[in-house]
């Protein structure tokens, strides 16, 4: 069967099981858009800006565990994807981006809408391709999906010149990926490594598990729980590790790091063993590396060999697929108890509860933490939340406990403002039966709010919760702590979000009192299609605790207890 390059692209996507792709047409990708008319089984979502397409593909990938697909034209279309690609790279999210390129003969001539997009995206993709021979095309697409989802997942970009999209060849689908001599994702650990890890686990008196995104990516959620329960080891979560262990589990001690639970951070600093599973010791997690967990031996399991000993020097480094490694490890793990250690952590938690704003009567004020906690309460804790970046993101991590894997989606590594809303839409395509909330700030939402039109056009049932404090809240918090309260360029004008939503034909509501939150959730749930709710919260909020950047992990700025004065 003779197919054009464009048809080969779609034929291959179909065979990869792609059901939806997010994109924006343009000159150099038009042959592929034209061929879409012959492939109605792949739904195309027209975005309003290509960045949105990349974030939607990312959200789709994180919610489904499958590869998300974004498609754009050459030049500006391709460069608009860049932020979304970098976001996916930092958070190991499998997406494939397809971009049109000018015809082969025009490459290098500064043709209209020409950009060297493989050059631009080289450092922010797991791999990328510029297809210069149509016979390569089926292989390249097969490889791209394989590379994106295997090993440590990540974004792959395929740049396809326009004349390759229109050329025709006899189509043969490559059943196997056979052209990657330099790519063999690691699988299992050696017996020696397992033995060394077990020895440390059995010797430890104050062990702690640090669970990251890799737990979910490798499907090791059950194994993690087994390890924790059998050896009675407390589990701290990274931001992207939320959902790896149910947060109502008695052994889950909460998020770690800059805005983590004080108990988690203190426990890490006092531990005699860190068992780091599928996490990468990001600076937001470790604070000052020189003083980080000084008394602890360290076991680190990661699928990416370059992560071992990158930031933190470890005693046992195991490169492998976490689930396979855990399956090797678990038979050797002896049942034990660490009652004293767990009690000590419990005491820290009680101290934190005393400080918690959620346990205080705040009168007429409405605080972000209260909104998030009420959203948790009134959604039964079962929604999939997709956050943007900033104070509301950290408040979500603190006040919306998650019980299931992949139920919280957020831009962790890159911290991409504007991610939340489009990623939530992508997540809805992946999990159409789930209740999806995009929890965003007034700043980040305005970066990608053009996608309101996409939500309306596609009638995507996403509930948008804007936590509006009329500031770039997290930046303002830094200015308050570290720049003598010079609030420069952080007070923020916003449009009337309710009227804005109405202009798009999207039902909306403004909430200014705490007793309206329940009603707002009911309104969102009972309304068809996208809904926007603006929560007007106290302007000068602070996310506690906070480890200042580069400070020791246990040197947190804490919320004063009632009666204590602020620092």
């Amino acid at each position, binding site marked *: 069967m003779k197919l054009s390059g464009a048809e080969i692209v779609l034929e291959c996507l179909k065979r990869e099981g792609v059901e939806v792709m997010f994109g924006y047409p343009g000159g150099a990708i038009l042959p592929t858009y034209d061929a879409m008319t012959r492939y109605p089984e792949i739904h195309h979502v027209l975005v309003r800006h290509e960045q949105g397409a990349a974030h939607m593909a990312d959200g789709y990938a994180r919610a489904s565990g499958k590869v998300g697909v974004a498609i754009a034209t050459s030049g500006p279309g391709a460069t608009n994807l860049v932020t979304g690609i970098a976001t996916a790279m930092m958070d190991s999210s499998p997406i494939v981006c397809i971009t049109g390129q*000018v015809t082969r*003969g025009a490459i290098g001539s500064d043709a209209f809408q020409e950009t060297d997009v493989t050059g631009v995206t080289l*450092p922010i993709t797991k791999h990328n391709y*510029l297809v210069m021979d149509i*016979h390569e095309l089926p292989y390249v697409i097969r490889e791209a999906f394989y590379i994106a989802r295997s090993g440590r997942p990540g974004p792959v970009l395929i740049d396809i010149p326009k004349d390759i999209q*229109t050329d025709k060849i006899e189509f043969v689908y490559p059943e196997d990926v056979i052209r990657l*001599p*330099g790519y063999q994702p690691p699988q299992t650990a050696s017996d020696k490594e397992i033995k060394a890890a077990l020895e440390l686990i059995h010797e430890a008196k104050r062990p702690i598990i640090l669970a990251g995104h890799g737990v979910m990516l490798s499907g090791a959620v059950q194994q993690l729980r087994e390890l924790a329960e059998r050896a009675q080891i407390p589990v701290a979560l990274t931001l992207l590790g939320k959902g790896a262990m149910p947060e109502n589990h008695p052994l889950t001690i909460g998020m770690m790091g800059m805005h983590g639970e004080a108990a988690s951070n203190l426990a890490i600093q006092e531990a005699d063993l860190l068992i780091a599973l599928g996490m990468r010791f990001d600076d937001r997690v470790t604070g000052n590396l020189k003083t980080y967990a000084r008394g602890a031996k360290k076991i680190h399991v990661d699928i990416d060999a370059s992560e071992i000993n990158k930031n933190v020097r470890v005693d046992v480094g195991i490169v492998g697929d976490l689930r396979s490694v855990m399956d090797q490890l678990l038979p050797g793990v002896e049942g034990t108890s660490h009652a004293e250690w767990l009690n000590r952590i419990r005491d820290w938690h009680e101290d934190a509860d005393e400080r918690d704003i959620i346990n205080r009567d705040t009168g007429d004020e409405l605080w972000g933490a209260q909104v998030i906690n009420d959203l948790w309460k009134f959604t039964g804790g079962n929604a999939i939340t997709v956050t943007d970046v900033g104070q509301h993101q950290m408040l979500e991590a603190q006040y919306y406990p998650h019980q299931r894997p992949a139920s919280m989606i957020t831009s962790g590594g890159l911290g991409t403002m504007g991610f939340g809303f489009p990623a939530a839409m992508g997540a809805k395509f992946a999990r159409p039966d789930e209740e999806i909330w995009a929890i965003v700030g007034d700043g980040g939402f305005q970066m990608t709010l053009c996608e309101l039109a996409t939500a309306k056009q596609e009638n995507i049932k996403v509930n948008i919760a804007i936590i509006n404090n009329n500031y770039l809240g997290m930046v303002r918090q830094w200015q308050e702590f570290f720049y003598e309260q010079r609030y420069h360029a952080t007070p923020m004008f916003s449009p009337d979000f309710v009227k804005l939503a109405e202009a798009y034909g999207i039902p909306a509501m403004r909430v200014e009192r705490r007793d309206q939150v329940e009603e707002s959730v009911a309104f969102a749930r009972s309304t068809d299609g996208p809904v926007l709710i603006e929560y007007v919260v106290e302007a000068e909020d602070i996310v506690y605790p906070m480890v200042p950047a580069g400070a020791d992990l246990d040197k947190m700025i804490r919320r004063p207890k009632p009666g204590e004065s602020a620092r």
Partner: protein
Amino acid sequence: MPDHKPKKYLLVALVENKPGVLNRVASLFRRRNFNVDSLTVGRTHKPHLSRMTIAVDATRGDAFKIHMNLLKLINVVDVANVSHEPHVSRDLALIKVRANDAESRNGLTLICERYPARIVDIGPEVAIVEITAQEDQVESLIDELKPIGILELVRTGVVAMGRGVRILDSDYEPVSPITATSEAKSYEVYSV
């Protein structure tokens, strides 16, 4: 482990002979802030494989990081840190020196005799000296030639190979997607 003393490491990378691979490697070094002393690349006896020798100034830990990051590149087939094993390394230099009087010509000849170096071109004004040797020998020849007057200098950078039967190779045979139906099509410039 004392880890902060930078030292020279020689990494040998077997890479797919594809466009852009050199760029990927170079980009990696820039992006991760690794210091490259020299980087050479050339074909091997297998047309689909090229080989790079990368000399880096790094701590032991950084050399390991570079090794792991190189392996992470999809087009890098294998990497060996030959500094950890007995190896042969060579650097080639062409050095144009002043040779316009008897003193300089005699000096040149005497110096070259003590090195694996030879004069490959000589005229009334200048001569070109070629040396193929270990890097430190090349350095010391350059130092000796300086007083005579170096006018131009080019070096290939170090190439290296582990000694003995530990072979850095790959069984991989490329599968050509070009089927019988393929017609060699010339590129045409369409309207963009």
